[in-house]
């Protein structure tokens, strides 16, 4: 078994935005892409993708159209809107600043001060 990590509260939206930014995906595709990108480290409750997707849609960050999946079935493909791309940039910046800051704090050794 791989060692898995639970998602931090509120980061799922960011991850979904990122996954979709690489190309239109259906819900299951988002899951696969996230597992692939995180090398199966992230544990995502599968059903929770959908409320998150609808929330992003409600906020106008993603849009969708019905298309054909790899196995020739009708599926809902999500893609980013302009607002979604902007949000992704903002959130990424914020995340990097935050994780950098937290990293700095956590790396501090007793002698550093």
């Amino acid at each position: 078994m791989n060692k898995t990590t639970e998602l931090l509260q509120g980061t799922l939206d960011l991850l979904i935005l990122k996954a979709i930014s690489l190309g239109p995906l259906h819900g299951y595709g988002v899951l696969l892409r996230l597992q692939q990108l995180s090398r199966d480290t992230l544990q995502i409750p599968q059903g929770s993708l959908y409320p998150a997707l609808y929330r992003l849609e409600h906020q106008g960050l993603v849009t969708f159209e019905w298309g054909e999946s790899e196995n020739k079935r009708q599926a809902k493909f999500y893609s980013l809107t302009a607002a979604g791309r902007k949000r992704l940039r903002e959130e990424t910046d914020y995340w990097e600043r935050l994780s950098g800051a937290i990293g700095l704090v956590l790396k501090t050794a007793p002698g550093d001060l």
Partner: protein
Amino acid sequence: MLTSLAAIRSFLRAWLARSRMEREMDREMRFHLEARAADLESQGMSRADAERRARQEFGDLIRWKEAGREARGLMLVDDLAGDLRFTVRTLQRTPGFTLAAVLSLALGIGSTTAIFGLFDVLLLRELPVRNPQQLVHVTTSGERGDAHSGSSNYPWFQEVASRSDLFAETMLVRHDVYKVGIRGRVEPLTGQRVTVNYHTMLGVQPVLGRTFGPDDRPEAGAPPVAVISHALWQRRFSGSADVLGATITVDQQPYTIIGVTPPTFRGILVGWTTDVTMPLDTSEFRDPNLWSTTPVIARLQPNVSIDEARQHVDPMLIRFVAAGKTTERFRARYLQHASVTSAATGITDLRQQFGSPLRLLMIAVGLLLLIACVNLAGLLVARNATRQHELGMRLALGAGRWRIVRQLLTESAALSVLGATLGLVLAIKGGNALVATLPQHFGPVSLTLAPDVRVLGFAATAVLATTILFGLMPAWQASQVAVMPALHRSSHRTSTRLPFGRVLIVAQFALSLVLVAGAVLCVRTIVNLAQVNTGFERDRLLVVRMDPQGTDYERERLRALQREMLEHLRAIPGVEQVTLATGSPFNGNVDGRRLTVPGVEPREPDDTIIQVNLVGPDYFSTLQVPIISGRAIDSHDRDNTSRVAVVSEAFARRYFGDAASAVGRTIVINRGPQPIPHEIVGVAQDIRYQDLRRPSDRLAYLPWFQANDVRLASFEFILRTNGYPAHRIEMTRQTMQRLRPDVPILAIDTMIGVINERLLSERLVASLGTFFAIVALTLAAIGVYGLLSYVVAHRTAEIGVRLALGAHPLEMVWMTVRQSLLLAMAGAVIGIAGATAGLRVLDGLLFGLSPTDLVNLVVAALLLVLVAVAAAYVPARRAATVNPLTALRAD
């Protein structure tokens, strides 16, 4: 902006297509499960295991769907439902407040909508015909002329029609009341004779049969045909197709029905359903010097405006009249100017008679609606103030301010909708009652006052404005509640003074004063008019209006009927005296004749015309008009005696200097073309003849039974009773019908009734104005009551302390009443200023007083003060009976 748009779109999509969204969500999640299962299967699991595993990994499907719905914004819908449920509960908890608020809105919106409905029908609504805005009425007018029913004749009509550069098409329309016989029953109906292009020009298609064509012209000897209204078709022919080809009589002439017009089309005369339409025989008025009241209606060329047409018709008329032989006098009175007015909304005399009273009433109801809204705002302010504790609690528990504003807005919206619904019911009932008070001279007036889209639109706008304007302000104010003081419930930290509430009350009082002062003016005008000395006995007279035209009663047969009727009417118990006349006072039947007075030079054109009233024996004694000099007309004045006349005092003074020197003189009155000398045998005192506001023009009374040229016009029997004349109406009708079942009675009414009909617009404004003023005062009382109740409730502790320290309960009463009085007085002062400026609009309607009459304003202000004291009574008593112990413990 973008995101909020997307949110709205997503929300709407979710709300409008909820089931589709559910389907899609289901489909999407199922796809996920199947795809996952397929992947797992390809990794070597059995199908059943793969499916189970996929469901496990996905988690609780139902929960995720619920979360999905929430994310979609359906939460807002559920919130709204919650708001509504909460609103209903809150409103139920304070039934007094709810009732007051709903009633004040209902009264405000109801009256506005009713008056607007009438206004709309009379002044605004377009005819249901093709391009109504192109229709114009070509009118003529002069110093006596009346722009709405100007004169015309066929040559003038042709002159107008020849201007094809201005008018695409032109027609003549003559309205009248006809005695229409259908299957043996004769009834008076509104009808019209029109040029045969009438229906095609208006673009009215028949629902049955056909309309007129060029072959139906009576001048060309066509058989007489008629088109009837949908209403008549339904009423008398039960909507049967057999109606085509049926024969009806119109003033005893047979006509064949060839068509039925659609139900929406009632003719072009506003307020009337024109039941019978016949082709006009234009050969009857080809003489260019004879003018009659027959409106010329034209359709403008598409590229011609009303203003352009107007500029052209005036010179046309002047040229036309100059070429003819019209008398100078007639020209000056009726043919000085031609004009063009829009006929898009039809033509009407009602508009002239009621246009300005309705405008006044519109202003009044506008004020009332404003008062109602101010009142609602005041109530909301006072109420929200008492709810500061609750609101503070909700804020403390984490409710957003916007959430609270929304809740309060929902409340005022709910009140508005309730008020508007009730108001609409009032409007429909009241509007129809209003129509019932319109004049009944010519049969039923049929204004359609069913609520239509525009009336509803008006009500909806009023509601919306109320909610937003007055719901938002208190809502916002309340949401500014500071959490801590509100929770502490400490009365000195939250305002007890409610400055905004006070401003609203003062505004309400001021507006009310204007309405009250206006209403008092109108009522006093009616009282003044009722007290005018008419110069004759008006309280005990009964008037029977007859119209022999179109019946078998002619000449000698008619005379015989009249003599016989006089005898039998006199024999009715309780009837003291009976006479007859062509023009009894206020019947509107004025008969002008040409006059010369030997030995007296006419000083102005008016001196050559005289109003003539043909009167039977006993006329002066029946009406109790005093004879100042000489004798009255009596039964000796008949065919074979010498011609005599009684003249009015004004006449005698004008021509002979005084009453006494008139007796014995001769006047020459044209009867038809023939001048006939009459000897003046008496002079009667002046009476109010056609207008209560001023004494009559000069009058000549000629003996009925001496006038062998009596036209077959309408006339009246006048009875003087020994008691209340209305009690004799039924007996009179029965007596006449027993004697001659076919007598053409038009109406039986008391003289007071006849006069009141003349005062219709005054009475309409006075009675509605009074009603509005009472409503306004009631609303003001409610407003004051609400405010003071709040103040007293809020100061209970303070009052308790004062009472405990030995203050007299009466002081507490005074403290409360004083506030109300101060507000009323402030309102009255502002209101008096407003009334002084604003009530001038009533000028034309008033009689015997000025719009800024001081007594009037004082009366209105006193009424206001009275209401203020009355409204303060209950809160004041509550203040006086505060128990110091309970009050102190409560805080």
